[in-house]
Structure formats: structure tokens, C-alpha cells
């Protein structure tokens, strides 16, 4: 069972985990300069979703799953884990280790996730607790460094985009921040009140906003829109005390940690909730191996990447919705 504090930290990280590579870039392409407004509305919608999770957590037994729950949760985990491993592999093979084969990169990501699963949820939560101050420090330094570079002109004009596109961005924000939170329904934790349950989500969403604001404010919408990884490209502008440059690789380690924790939670749920058995260790290993191969396969087939790029949020929302429905309608 994890403590309240560990739950808040896990919630914070899970809010951010899916944003790398698929969140900000998609929103910018949809809603342009209105991305900031769409993000704020998306956070509000996500908060409503998290409130629904809390109500279910209060009134239903979310730790015991029936077959239907397990099947839906399995698909949800596959989408989330594939997105996470794929995004991280693409980031690392595009910017850090250009000549290293993506399969090797993805393998090492999943090995660490597997080891984390073997150690148990308490260890994963403890590691998150230890690493969180480092992540928060990076966020604070980034935010303080970017704010002087922001030009207010870059946020205008507002409400020029099609309403449908703005709505899409709102749904993307809500889906990518709030749907991973549904995984936390399935982990044993201390009794939480509403504030303790939602604070991690709120702070995680604020950290995403603190990334979107400089991306639009420093780059401007036309440039931010054309970049595949604007959240990485903005880090190239970091220049501390006019002396320290090329810090993007250090500051992007926060995403690596986000995805490891997200992957760890997904693998834990697979091992302990979906396939709990005496052979769960080996089943988890096989599952993660398949996920590795799937992520690398997706990486090398761009039409699939484009499909996921445009529709991941819809799939996540749909699966989350039917999972919640299955929990609510579950017989005792």
C-alpha cells in the first residue's frame, strides 16, 4: 500500500507522462494560438474526469476486477505503454543516440520498467518520491529562464481558429492528462480525501501549462507548429546566466523519468491485476517484450505513427469511459 504523499507524486507524474511527443505538437496543429485557452479548458475537463474517478474510488471496489474490467484495462495499458515507449524511443533516437538502433533503446527502457515491477509498487513509489524534487527543480529553472524571453504578441490573435479544432485540443488535453490517472484506481493506497486525490493532477497540469506558455510565447505559433518535438526544441533556447548553454539533454531527463514511472505503473497493473499468477513474472516479461517490439514496429511505420498522432486521445477517452462504466456496473 502506498502512502498519501506517494500517491500524490505518482498522480503528478502520470498527468505528464503522455505529453511527450504527442500532446503539445498535436494541440498546436489543431488550435494554433488558441492552444493556451484550449489547454486551460482541457485541464478543467480533465479535473471533472478525475472527480468522477474519485467518486468511483469512494463508492466502488476498484481493486477487485472482473474479466471485462481486465480486458478493457489491458487495452488501456497497451495504448498508454506503447505511446510512452514509442515517444521516448523516438526522442532518444532523434536527439541523443542517433546511430543506436531503436530496438536497443526500447529494450533498455523496458528492462528498467521490468526491474521496477519486480521490486514492487512501494519501491516504484519510493523512487518517484526521491526523484520528484529533481523534476520540480528542472521545471522551476526552465520556467524562470523562459519567462524573460516570452513575447506577449505571440499569443494573439485569439479565437481565430475553428471551434471544432479548439474542442479537439480541449479533448486532447483532458485525455492525455486525465486518462492515465484511471490506472491509479487499481493500486492499493491509504484513504484519500478529495483534495489529496486531485492535487497531483492539478499540479501536473500546471507543469504542462508552464511548458506550453513558453513554447508559444518564445517560438510563436508558426514556428512552434512546424516542430515535431516543440517541448524539446524550446529547451535549446535555455541559456542560464548567459554562460551555460546546450542544457536540453539535462532538462529533458524529466520526461525519461515520467515515462519510466508511467511504464512501471502499467507493468505493475498488468502483473498484479490483469495476470496475477505464480508465473506473472514471466508473463510480464513476455508482455513487455511484445510492447518493445510493437513500439519499434510503430516507429518504423510512419502511417501508424500519424494515426496514433491524430487519434490516440479518442481511443484513450473511449477506453477510459467504458472502463469506468464497467466498474460502475460491476456486480459485487
Amino acid at each position, binding site marked *: 500500500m502506498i502512502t498519501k504523499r506517494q500517491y500524490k507524486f505518482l498522480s503528478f507524474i502520470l498527468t505528464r507522462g503522455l505529453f511527450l511527443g504527442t500532446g503539445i505538437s498535436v494541440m498546436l496543429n489543431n488550435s494554433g494560438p488558441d492552444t493556451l485557452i484550449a489547454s486551460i479548458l482541457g485541464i478543467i475537463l480533465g479535473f471533472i474526469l478525475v472527480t468522477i474517478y474519485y467518486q468511483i474510488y469512494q463508492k466502488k471496489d476498484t481493486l477487485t476486477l472482473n474479466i471485462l474490467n481486465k480486458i478493457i484495462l489491458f487495452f488501456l495499458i497497451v495504448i498508454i505503454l506503447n505511446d510512452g515507449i514509442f515517444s521516448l524511443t523516438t526522442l532518444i533516437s*532523434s*536527439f*541523443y*543516440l*542517433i*546511430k*543506436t538502433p531503436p530496438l*536497443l533503446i526500447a529494450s*533498455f527502457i523496458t*528492462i528498467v520498467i521490468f526491474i521496477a515491477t519486480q521490486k514492487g509498487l512501494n519501491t516504484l513509489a519510493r523512487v518517484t518520491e526521491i526523484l520528484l524534487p529533481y523534476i520540480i527543480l528542472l521545471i522551476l529553472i526552465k520556467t524562470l529562464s523562459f519567462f524573460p*524571453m516570452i*513575447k506577449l*504578441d505571440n499569443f*494573439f*490573435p485569439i479565437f*481565430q481558429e475553428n471551434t471544432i479544432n479548439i474542442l479537439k485540443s480541449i479533448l486532447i488535453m483532458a485525455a492525455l492528462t486525465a486518462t492515465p490517472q484511471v490506472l491509479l484506481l487499481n493500486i492499493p493506497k491509504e484513504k484519500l480525501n478529495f483534495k489529496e486525490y486531485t492535487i497531483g493532477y492539478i499540479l501536473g497540469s500546471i507543469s504542462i501549462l508552464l511548458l506550453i506558455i513558453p513554447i508559444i510565447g*518564445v*517560438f*510563436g*505559433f*508558426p*514556428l512552434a507548429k*512546424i516542430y515535431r518535438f516543440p517541448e524539446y*526544441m524550446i529547451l*535549446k*533556447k535555455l*541559456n542560464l546566466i548567459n554562460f551555460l548553454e*546546450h542544457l536540453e539533454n539535462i532538462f529533458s531527463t524529466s520526461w525519461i523519468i515520467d515515462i519510466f514511472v508511467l511504464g512501471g505503473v502499467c507493468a505493475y497493473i498488468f502483473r498484479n491485476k490483469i495476470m496475477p499468477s505464480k508465473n506473472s513474472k514471466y508473463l510480464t516479461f513476455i508482455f513487455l517484450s511484445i510492447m518493445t517490439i510493437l513500439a519499434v514496429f510503430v516507429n518504423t511505420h510512419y502511417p501508424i505513427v500519424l494515426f496514433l498522432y491524430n487519434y490516440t486521445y479518442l481511443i484513450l477517452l473511449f477506453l477510459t469511459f467504458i472502463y469506468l462504466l464497467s466498474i460502475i456496473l460491476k456486480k459485487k
Partner: protein
Amino acid sequence: MKKIWLIILLLLTTGCYDFKELNSLAIIEGIGIDYQDGEYVVTFEILNDKKLENTNVDMARKTTLVTTKDKKFVKAFEDAIKATPKDAYFYQLKLLLITEDLASHGIEDIADFLLRLHKINKSLYMVMVDNCTIPEILSLDIDNEPVLSSAILDLISKNPKLTPVNTNDSFDLMINKILKKGSDIAIPSVKILDNSISLSNIKLFHNFKYVGSLSEKETNTYFLLKDTVYDIYYEDNANTIAIYNNKVDYNYDKDILTITFKANASIKTIDEKYDLKDRNTYLELSKIYSKLIKDDILKLLEKAKENNSDFLALGNLIYNKTPKDYYEGCSFDKKIIVKVNINVNRNGLVYEVIK
């Protein structure tokens, strides 16, 4: 068993797969791109790490140049990479030099390629060369300046009369300015003067093409409007003032563009007819220079219209404020009101006029 796994993991995960020795890298400090006779000419300035031992040669040149050409820019660039003696390393790249010929042809091809390429540092600065070729300027032999790309960048960033190069002037943000509606760019240029590098005029662009340049006076006025300046001199017959603490406000309302310019000024030289102890002297000088600067701003706006280059981004201001009023070149059609208020409030260390 666990220790063995740990040792294996530690050995395999140190990130050495992509490891390169420093002396196997060709560190490229500057890139030059020209366009001659239908071909792109790409020049790399590469740091030379060769030690000259047991020679009497004073090793002033620390760089070598590699130049290639091709009808397609991508091919010329790739050929230049292949022609570098070692593994081309672009992460220290700070300068992009272009010529008037290339700029007149258009820089969209090079912008597309350079932004897409992951190995290029996007925070490089674009500078035009005036009245010379890129290999000529990069092969100059200047005392205490072994790397010409750094020398050019220092010239632009440390010149007190020129706005310091800041992060808002980097290549990617320049492209953003071009892509924005109602906004064009103006870039610095350099030339060879007396076997050394010197600043030349500001070059104007419309979309991705070079359209004209500003004179020295127009350049001063442009910097007054662009950013905070320190000591830009203004002369009027026997008087000279230095502008500081300038502030510009642009506003658009009901089809009228208003530019409000306020600045303080200190007296550098003054006609003997003035009495620096008389309050009216300062009022009169403020009035004279306010009118002078207003006339210069209006001439600058006229120049922008002549060259169809909205380098002050007035069109973008209109688009941000009232999108339905925007169309291509709208800022040149709107009525512009310029309000200038210069406050001459310092006279230096000497209170009397030396006659």
C-alpha cells in the same frame, strides 16, 4: 547473480554506442551559403586542430574552409559534409553567412532544410555579407581573430551602436517572424574594410527574399524603434545628443496606427549660443530633436513602403489587434501618426560650453 546482472547492465548502458573522440570531429563554426550561376555554393569554416610543431610558422589561422557547389542546396550541403576531413559536428555552429545573390533568390529552401536537420543548432545567427564573397571574408587574416565566424559574431554582439544580438534574433525566430502574418525581417550585414571586418547596412527582406537595405541614418532610427539602445548619437549642425532609455509603443485603433516614441537624451556637444544653465535650452533642444527623430521615423516608414518590407511588423500588430482589418501590405495603406517626445535631461560632466 544480481551483481553479475548489475555489472552487465552498467557496462552496456553507459551510452558509448554513439561515442566519438573529440579529435575525430570536424567542429564547424560557421556556414556560408551563396547562389551563383544557378548553383548553391556552400562553405564550412572548420576548426583546425592540427599542431604545427618544429616550424617557424606563426599559426594565426585556426580554421580551414571547405567549399562545394551544386544546383540543389541539399546536395551541395551533403557534398560539403563529405568533403570535411572528419565527422562534421554542427552543435557549436553559431553563424550563417548569406550573400545578396542568395537572399535575392530566396532563403526558403535553406530555411526548410536547416530547421529540419536535427544536427544543426537552431540558435545560429544569420548575417549577410556585403560586397565580397564568403570565402574572401572567412579567409581574412586578422590579428587576434583566428576564427572569423566568432569574430563576426563578436562584432555584431559587442558593438555598442548595434543592438546586442539576443535570443530573439536567432535563425529559427527569424523564420518565425517571416512566417507570421504582417511581419518581415531585417538582418545585419558585414563587409571587408581595410583588410578587416566591418559592419555594413541593415538588409531588408520581404517574405523570404532580400528587397533592399537601410542607410546608416535609417539603421540608427530602426534600432531606436526596435530595442533599447545605449548612446545612439543624433546630430544637428553643431549639437550632438546621445539617446538612451528609449521606449516605443505601437497602437492600432480604428484604422489608425500610432507610434509613440519616448526617450531621454544627454548632450554630447553643443553650440556656443546655448546656455546650459538655462532651462529653456533643454526645452528647445528637446523640441528640435523630437522633430528630427519624428522626420527620420517617417522616412523609415516610407522606406519600408518603398521596399514592401514590413520589418517593423506593423501588419502583425494590425492582425493581432483586429484580424478582419488585416491583408497583405495593409500597414502601408493605413494612416500613421508618429508622436515623439525626446527629453534632453543630461549635459555630461561639463556645465559650461567651451568657447
